[in-house]
């Protein structure tokens, strides 16, 4: 039997896998993308809207994010689909003196690393964002922060990849990665086999499961974020509003007490083009559990109402839980597998996948075609975890 053949089989139909498939296909590679569900069925279909710069740690991640933002700015035209990318800026709002200190330090740090950042006092912050409560102390302002619709971005990548000849197989669950002489030769799926020149594991929260099929460990775990959506309202917000408490809760292990009490959570909010207010999120490590609960949702609802009192007049219409693929240091793993030379890994973007998907697709495609060396992605290699395991 003649198997269908692909230069590269990309596993994973989220924003990362579709972005890689697009970049490979436009380089003339013969690409097949497989996913066990539909497109954007996992993390990309239950994400928040932020394409944030000021939340990135200075260094490799911030540089990568800025390169990605530059791509986002022209990607709508390039892909031929409006994925609701809007560059309207973003705020990190301080409500307590420790938060104010934290935000001021963050602004200074990011300024020192070249990001355009401002610290606004209460008056300035409320002039820019009139919906903010009078009790706030101040805010960071990052003009580069942006929003996008993750589902449309994923579909846009997939459609563009198809136009360049990529074959997209949904409802094709990977059952086996067949290895001969140390290389993957075939990807066996529930919908048939594909002979593969190279394979990309872009499985997100399921990337460890795929890695285990070839005896490898990937230190990625799901981190749940609960989100709520309100009815559409006329525009009352500009760009993104984050509570400083959300970022400060990142530093806390799951289950520990934050300043405002309860589980690690905080407000990350924006209005969609339709006018829906979308607010996340909790930060919970609860395995592959997508459910929402009253404790998590009511906490971010109370925080939202306190931060932007006008939101209390909106009706909540929908809630959902999303799982983010989290690596131990909050950075994605992007590499050629040190163990299997024709296996590539692009996973673990946690909450940064929407922001980082354009540059991830470009760099992974360049790595696979040999346009760049592995040194370019060295900060994202899994070897960075090795000193911890010894």
């Amino acid at each position, binding site marked *: 039997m003649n198997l269908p053949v692909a230069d590269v089989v990309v596993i994973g139909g989220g924003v990362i896998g579709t972005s890689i498939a697009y970049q490979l296909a436009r380089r003339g590679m013969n690409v097949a993308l497989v996913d066990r569900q539909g497109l954007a069925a996992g993390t990309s279909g239950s994400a928040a809207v932020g394409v944030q710069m000021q939340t990135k740690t200075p260094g490799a991640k911030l540089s990568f994010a800025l390169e990605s933002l530059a791509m986002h700015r022209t990607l709508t035209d390039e892909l031929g689909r409006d994925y609701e990318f809007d560059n309207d800026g973003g705020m990190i709002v301080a409500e307590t003196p420790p938060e104010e200190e934290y935000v001021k330090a963050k602004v200074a740090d990011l300024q020192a690393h070249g990001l355009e950042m401002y610290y606004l006092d209460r008056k300035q912050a409320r002039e820019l964002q009139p919906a903010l409560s009078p009790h706030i102390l101040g805010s960071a302002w990052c003009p580069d922060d942006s929003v996008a619709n993750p589902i449309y971005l994923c579909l846009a990548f997939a459609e563009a990849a198809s136009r360049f000849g990529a074959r997209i197989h949904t409802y094709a669950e990977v059952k086996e990665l067949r290895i001969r002489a140390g290389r993957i030769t075939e990807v066996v799926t529930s919908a048939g086999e594909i002979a593969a020149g190279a394979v990309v594991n872009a499985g997100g929260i399921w990337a460890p499961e795929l890695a285990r099929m070839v005896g490898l460990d990937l230190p990625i775990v799901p981190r749940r974020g609960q989100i709520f959506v309100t009815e559409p309202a006329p525009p009352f917000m500009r760009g993104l509003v984050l509570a400083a408490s959300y970022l400060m809760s990142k530093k806390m292990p799951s289950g520990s007490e934050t300043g405002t009490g309860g589980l690690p959570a905080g407000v990350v909010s924006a209005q969609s083009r339709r006018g829906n207010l979308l607010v996340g999120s909790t930060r919970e490590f609860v395995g592959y559990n997508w459910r929402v609960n009253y404790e998590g949702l009511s906490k971010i609802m109370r925080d939202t*109402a306190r931060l932007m009192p006008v939101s209390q007049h909106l009706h909540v219409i929908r809630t959902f839980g999303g799982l983010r693929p989290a690596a131990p240091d909050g950075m994605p793993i992007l590499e050629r597998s040190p163990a299997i030379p024709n296996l590539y890994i692009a996973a673990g973007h946690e909450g940064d996948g929407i922001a980082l998907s354009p540059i991830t697709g470009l760099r992974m495609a360049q790595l696979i075609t040999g346009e760049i060396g592995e040194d370019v992605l060295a900060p994202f290699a899994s070897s960075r975890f090795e000193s911890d395991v010894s």
Partner: protein
Amino acid sequence: MADLIICRCEEITEAEVLEAIHQGARNLTEVKRRTRAGMGLCQGKTCQGLVARLLARELGSNLASIAPPSARPPTRPLLLAAFVEEQPA
């Protein structure tokens, strides 16, 4: 009847739902992701059955085999203020 409105909240037409199915949507959640049908104020209470029938017809499957989307709160729109009043003591 291509311009027949299927989802009143988001103003999604039959043609748009059919296009999503022809592009690969196999269930209610996928149609919702691609078109927004069912994402509006009523959260699919009106259109879910209509979309399910279009899916069954286009996919040549039994209506009963079209699984309902995962149910999540709230069942009906709820004022955000309702959550604020219930402060822990």
